[in-house]
């Protein structure tokens, strides 16, 4: 019988136990599979469990461990967001369109983590095509937040965040196009990093908005995220936008030293619109960093307000082009008994895509259509540069920019579902980071009424180490990241 503490242990702790043969990867994997079995009926965080394959991975990891050839991640159980193509394993992207889709290849992220020796337990639920901030758009049903099962886990990587918080895996992957790692990390009380655009290969990640999409690690701590990011990153010949830059060992860069670190607080984030309880928690986290030697400096990001309008032109426009490939012919859902080719296209797409995905395709198609291209798409690309320049200027006087990850704590199911704009506002603090291609993370900053809230740290391009190190300092000085949801109090 495996001690339940291992379900919430860090990578370093488990690596120590595995290398000292206190536990085998097979035993560990079995414990996590049992945990998934126990909780998934309630949480719906996992859409596909790969028990047999996971146990095979684990036995292979145990052999590697016994040969002394292990990496930090060898034998560590992980769940992938169901947006990453996994060879021979169904990859749905949360959509009816891909309900039966079995990829012929692994995403680069999947292949790299596999090469490091992780054990893949299965695939996590998500908002359909990563379009949503609550996991309510998934074809496979909503994911429940383990801190309060009446509430959403955030999205779109909500299944990943909920699974990690509930101890169903040690590590999970996510993707972030406008906040889809950071907002659910905030709402579920975990640490999640969106790397710089180009740091991690996008090959094999089902495309949403190609100039914004990035995959990243979600884990219990900045240190665990660092281990994972090292394994995930790097130039990939299969992604022409992946960066040709050396990948540091992100973990070894965590000195914990933040003396003299200049942290900018944008006046536009800390204005009167910010919920006072969120402000109090975020400031309490920042004052911890100040105590450790960081300097807090007020800054301006004058065009922050335009991020949401810019994003909701560019992301749907790119999505409408990317999702044109789902035509009911080559792969994916096909309607029954099409009358002709036109009917096949129309019905396969309208039956295969959910409401939010269709709305974004419509908006994107409109923004790209003749007569509107200049007014919407071109204009939004211009404003994207203005927003990016704001960050560039701010980073001349600060090393890190801080703010909330989300405007509030997890909300109840249905609370924002009827109003697309209210839902879009969930990402008000995260969208600009994607537009500017910067790295950003969310780290736990305590609880409000028993529900987690996150601190967002934004870094200069390719300086993930700086924000990971600041979060690591915070996690050396506080125990917010160790808080666990009250799962044991659930009614059977």
């Amino acid at each position, binding site marked *: 019988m495996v001690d339940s503490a291992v379900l919430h242990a860090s990578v370093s702790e488990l690596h120590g136990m595995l290398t000292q043969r206190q536990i085998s990867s097979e035993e560990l994997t079995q414990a996590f599979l049992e945990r998934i079995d126990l909780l998934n009926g309630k949480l719906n965080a996992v859409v596909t469990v790969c028990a047999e394959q996971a146990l095979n991975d684990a036995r292979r990891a145990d052999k590697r461990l016994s040969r002394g050839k292990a990496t930090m991640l060898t034998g560590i159980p992980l769940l992938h967001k169901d947006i990453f193509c996994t060879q021979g394993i169904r990859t749905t992207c949360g959509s009816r369109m891909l309900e039966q889709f079995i990829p012929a290849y692994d995403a680069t992220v999947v292949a790299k983590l596999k090469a490091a020796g992780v054990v893949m337990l299965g695939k996590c639920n998500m908002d359909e095509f990563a379009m949503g901030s609550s996991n309510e758009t998934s074809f496979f049903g909503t994911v429940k937040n383990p801190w309060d099962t009446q509430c959403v886990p955030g999205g779109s990587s909500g299944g990943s965040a909920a699974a990690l918080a509930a101890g169903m895996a040690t590590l999970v992957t996510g993707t972030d196009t406008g906040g889809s790692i950071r907002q659910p990390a905030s709402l579920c009380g975990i640490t999640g990093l969106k790397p710089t655009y180009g740091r991690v290969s996008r090959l094999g990640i089902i495309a949403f908005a190609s100039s914004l999409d990035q995959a990243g690690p979600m884990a219990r701590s900045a240190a665990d995220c660092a281990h994972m990011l090292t394994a995930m990153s790097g130039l990939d010949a299969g992604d022409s936008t992946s960066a*040709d830059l050396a990948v540091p060992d992100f973990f070894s860069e965590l000195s914990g030293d933040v003396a003299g670190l200049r942290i900018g607080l944008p006046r536009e984030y800390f204005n009167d619109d910010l919920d006072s309880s969120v402000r109090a928690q975020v400031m309490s986290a920042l004052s911890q960093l100040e105590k450790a030697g960081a300097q807090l400096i007020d800054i301006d990001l004058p065009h922050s307000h335009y991020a949401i309008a810019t994003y909701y032109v560019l992301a749907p426009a790119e999505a409408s082009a990317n999702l044109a490939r789902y035509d009911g012919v080559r792969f*994916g859902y096909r309607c029954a008994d099409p009358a002709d080719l036109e009917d096949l296209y129309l019905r396969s797409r*309208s039956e295969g*895509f959910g409401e939010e995905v269709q709305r974004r*395709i419509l908006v994107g198609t409109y923004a790209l259509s003749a007569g509107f291209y200049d007014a919407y798409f071109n204009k939004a690309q211009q404003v*994207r540069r203005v927003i990016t320049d704001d960050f560039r200027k701010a980073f001349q006087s600060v090393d890190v920019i801080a703010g909330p990850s989300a405007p509030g704590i997890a909300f109840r199911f249905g609370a924002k579902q009827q109003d697309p704009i209210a839902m879009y506002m969930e990402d008000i603090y995260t969208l600009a980071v994607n537009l500017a291609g910067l790295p950003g993370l969310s780290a736990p900053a305590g609880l409000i009424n028993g529900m987690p809230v996150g601190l967002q740290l934004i870094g200069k391009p390719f300086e993930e180490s700086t924000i990971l190190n600041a979060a690591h300092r915070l996690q050396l000085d506080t125990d917010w990241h160790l808080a666990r949801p009250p799962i044991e109090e659930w009614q059977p």
Partner: protein
Amino acid sequence: MSISQEDVEKVALLARLAIAPSDLPEVTERFGRVLQLVNELNTIDTEGVAPMSNPHDMVQRLRPDVVTGGDEREALMASAPQQDRGYFLVPKVID
């Protein structure tokens, strides 16, 4: 700029999406709300600003035009909803 039901139907056709007549008023209303949101872009002066399509202003990297992957025809065709002898099947197009 508001949007009419006719406009929405036109865009839906371009996007190859079928909207049920009973859903059209609501789809139009929500579409209009999104447009209202993005119309805020008109309040910012971007005269002379170059559009940005990549956050690092990266230039497309090219590779030599050589075959790198193996023949995966069978594996890839396996995902097709309907196929026969290496062809994707669709409803009859030409009478």
